[in-house]
């Protein structure tokens, strides 16, 4: 050992003891600081971190309810939900949205519309909620994306249910369609009820019964990991599907009606006069509502919009046409009910009618007149002079007051949105609309459904149905029954409240009915020649109407038989109900370009009636044609009186 190792061992031990104690004191102090830090985090900031921990790991996933299905009266599925795939994007996982979209569109084509809609809905979602980018992916698109999916974190292919209308155009104007929720919808929607829902009813039944069809959303509390992958479901409240709707429409009658038009623009509505159930509601041409569900392309939309036949126009509900002679039964009824005429009162039809003291002539359809006619013959032969004179006797105000009872000039109140209300011409209406006074001549032409008159096919069908049920109004409606889920009970909708009949004296109605039976069954009837009632087991009561599309210039008669020429000038109407004695169906048909109501519109109505007949249970059908032939003879006998 060298001298250097002569150490102050005692001093060293003491110094070490002091240092060890100092060190330990510092260590305890440091541990206290660390403990204090834990206290700060775990006690002072516990609430904050608890919230963040929860937000980290628990995601609320909305479960949109499956939309209610729509059936016709016989259970034929008209609106279905079918599985499809869409692209979903979780915005918070995308660093540069535009770059991502640009790269993605190289894999899955994205239209400008897709991107615009997506960016719009980005604003309505929180960053961790997935936002649909493109709906209804094609199989090839899914395949291509699957290959490159790894390049697009935060973009996923997600299954969803999309609306499908198996009949395509046939019900487009009845059921309407759903489409993606847009800004305007979002503004008035209950955000909670529509959380996770992407589509909403835009038109038709889909819109009117949105509330019933939508259902109640459910949710899932899902525990997710750091990659947002669901680990397990903590809590699940299943969505309640929307109600299934059963419409009063009969798909087969609808189909027959559409076929009867053979593509010619027009509309038809068939109503059960006993309760107001709409059996068919047809607009020709129509469009494929499936195009709209997942966003219609600009090109498709442009085509529909610029089609001269206007397939997007819901003619049955909103199409406005002068009713022409179809108002005559109602006019005649008004004359009887208000006491201006008795059924036996006659008018001499010479071919032209003059307002006393005026030289302006108002013509009959028959060049030299129909001779002396009573109300029944005036309806049967559609004699204008009878109604000119009647209108003049009644005056426009009384005429309006009575006709408005049949719903003219007002919405029928059918369960569809955006119904047209037509025009029941009146001095008041004219003043409001044109700020012009009313002339007596306008009263005269209003008497034959010309002039300012506008009716919708729905309105006219409703009026006919009301007439058929002896004046008792039944608000037309499409919803017949509902059902909660597949196994729930079918709950029939209550019929609209019963209202008193608009007809005071049943004999008045009887006279009008006889006139209308004559239209179809009397050889002089305007619809007789085309055989509208031929071979039909029930007696059909009807009325033709041939409304002019333009005001006539000059006084000369048009004698041409060129149907194309006439069709360009005329709108052809036919209204009817059957069986005449206890009506079960009332129909209004308008053909936009028809030469005559009797020759062009009546055959369409007959085809609708044929389809309706085929739907009747055998027990309700007459066993043989003999019975009907008998009733036909009776009708003829009555008509002849």
């Amino acid at each position: 050992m060298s001298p250097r190792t002569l150490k102050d061992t005692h001093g060293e031990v003491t110094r070490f003891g002091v240092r060890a104690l100092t060190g330990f004191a510092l260590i305890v102090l440091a541990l206290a600081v660390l403990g204090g830090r834990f206290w700060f985090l775990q006690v002072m900031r516990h609430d904050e971190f608890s919230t963040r921990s929860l937000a980290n790991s628990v995601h609320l996933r909305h479960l949109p309810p499956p939309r209610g299905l729509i059936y016709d009266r016989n259970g034929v599925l008209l609106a279905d939900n079918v599985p499809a795939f869409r692209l979903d994007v979780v915005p918070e996982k995308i660093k540069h949205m535009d770059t991502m979209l640009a790269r993605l569109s190289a894999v899955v084509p994205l239209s400008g519309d897709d991107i615009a809609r997506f960016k719009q809905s980005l604003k309505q979602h929180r960053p961790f909620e997935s936002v649909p980018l493109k709906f209804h992916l094609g199989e090839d698109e899914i395949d291509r994306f699957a290959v490159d999916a790894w390049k697009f974190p935060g973009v996923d292919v997600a299954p969803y249910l999309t609306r499908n209308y198996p009949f395509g155009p046939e019900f487009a104007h009845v059921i309407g369609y759903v489409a993606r929720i847009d800004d305007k919808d979002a503004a008035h929607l209950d955000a909670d009820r529509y959380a996770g829902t992407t589509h909403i009813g835009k038109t038709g039944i889909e819109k009117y019964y949105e509330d019933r069809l939508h259902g109640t959303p459910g949710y899932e509390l899902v525990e997710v990991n750091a990659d947002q992958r669901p680990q397990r479901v903590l809590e699940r409240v299943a969505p309640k599907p929307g109600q299934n709707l059963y419409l009063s429409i009969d798909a087969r009658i609808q189909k027959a009606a559409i076929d009867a038009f053979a593509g010619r623009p027009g509309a038809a509505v068939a109503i059960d006069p006993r309760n107001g159930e709409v059996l068919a509601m047809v607009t020709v041409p129509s469009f494929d509502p499936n195009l709209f569900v997942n966003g219609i392309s600009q090109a498709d939309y442009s085509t529909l919009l610029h089609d001269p036949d206007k397939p997007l126009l819901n003619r049955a509900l909103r199409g406005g046409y002068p009713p022409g002679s179809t108002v005559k039964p109602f006019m005649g009824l008004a004359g009887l009910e208000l006491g201006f005429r008795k059924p036996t009162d006659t008018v001499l039809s010479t071919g032209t009618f003059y307002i006393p003291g005026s030289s302006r002539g108002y013509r009959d359809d028959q060049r030299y007149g129909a001779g002396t006619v009573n109300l029944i013959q005036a309806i049967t032969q559609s004699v204008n002079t009878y109604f000119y004179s009647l209108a003049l006797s009644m005056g426009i105000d009384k005429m309006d007051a009575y006709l408005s009872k049949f719903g003219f000039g007002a919405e029928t109140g059918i369960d569809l949105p955006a119904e047209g209300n037509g025009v029941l011409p009146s001095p008041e209406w004219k003043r409001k609309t044109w700020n012009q006074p009313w002339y007596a001549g306008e009263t005269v032409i209003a008497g034959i459904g010309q002039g300012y008159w506008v009716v919708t096919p729905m309105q006219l069908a409703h009026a006919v149905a009301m007439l058929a049920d002896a004046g008792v109004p039944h608000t037309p409606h499409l919803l017949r029954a509902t059902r909660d889920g597949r196994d729930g009970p079918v709950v029939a909708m209550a019929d609209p409240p019963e209202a008193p009949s608009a007809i005071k004296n049943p004999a008045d109605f009887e006279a009008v009915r006889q006139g209308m039976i004559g239209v179809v069954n009397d050889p002089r009837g305007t619809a007789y020649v085309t055989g509208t009632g031929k071979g039909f087991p029930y007696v059909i009561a009807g009325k033709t109407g041939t409304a002019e599309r333009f005001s006539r210039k000059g006084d000369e008669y048009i004698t041409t038989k060129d149907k194309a020429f006439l069709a360009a000038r005329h709108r052809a109407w036919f209204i009817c109900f059957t069986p005449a004695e206890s009506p079960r169906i009332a129909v209004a048909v308008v053909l936009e370009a028809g030469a005559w109501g009797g020759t062009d519109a009546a055959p369409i109505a007959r085809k609708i009636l044929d389809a309706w007949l085929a739907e009747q249970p055998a027990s309700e059908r007459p066993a043989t044609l003999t019975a009907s032939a008998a009733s036909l003879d009776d009708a003829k006998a009555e008509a002849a009186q």
Partner: protein
Amino acid sequence: MNATIASLRTRALRFGQRLMHRPRIDLPLAIALLILACVGLITLYSASDLDAGVIGGQAARFLLGAILMIVISRIPPTLLRTWTPWFYAISTLLLLVVAALGEGRGANRWLDLHVVRFQPSEFLKLSMPMMIAWYLHPRQLPPGWKDIFVVGVLVAIPSWLIAHQPDLGTALLVAASGIFVLFLSGIAWWRVGLMLGALAGVAPVAWHFLHDYQRQRVLTFLHPENDPLGNGWHIIQSMIAVGSGGVFGKGWHHGTQSRLEFLPEHTTDFIFAVYSEEFGLIGVLLLLALYAFIVGRCLWIAANARDTYSRLLAGAIGMSFFVYVMVNGGMITGLLPVVGVPLPMISYGGTSAVTLLCGFGVLMSIHAHRKFVG
């Protein structure tokens, strides 16, 4: 022949008896370590999401560490002291080897001997304080500038090598373990003050020598919220784990932060956050108390050691142990920057647990050969 066998048998028997009846291990320290090991396994079982394989591996390491601890505790400190320079030289040499041909994930830390794969820097955690204690043992204490300089060089060489792997955390721990020896040797406070002042002056220069990712860590530590999805993610998620634990914790295996993988490295460097989330403030305070007890016991053993070498070494090992706890705890609570330092006896894997138990073996040996035992 028979006599030899008989004699061997008696000697073996006597060795066994000595081991059983006069264990050279310090019972309070051993019990504290056992409790710690159990806490570690329980926490790890949860953090690994009930992975029995992980627990098996960790238990095997503990077993290996315990055996090494008992073996080392049989070696007298005087013998350890004699081997010290070799041990230091060899471990430093291994660092050079690693630097030359080591492998690792972006950082050259591992040495693969096919049979075992280890980080030579772990050895330095033990050989460093041993070397400094060995150097100071024969010197006049407290040391003067010359000895301080020599110690400085001895500390700097391996620390610099480790920092270059790059493994700043371990480098700092290794350097700290050497400096603790110096501190315990009674170095004058004014010298301590002077050196700290010099260090503060050098720090901006050192900043230039840091790797980008190391600088980033320091910056992230200062402003974690600036980069919530990048480097700050670790700190934020760790603090969420700790904070959401509250006073009583979420319960064992109910920590969502780790189970759902929001918490990175939740079986290794960030396991303390898992523990804090599941056992709450109460669990944390109990664990810190256990650590404090172990450190205190180490210092007590050091105070009763027989010679300078043993005293300085035991004290430095105890204080280094504390540094691991402090650095890890500081990291997971956002007090200190993110440096890859495991929580002693709780973090999974590596050579850490084995090295630690070897260190405690040295302490046991020092305890067994304390002053009044002779």
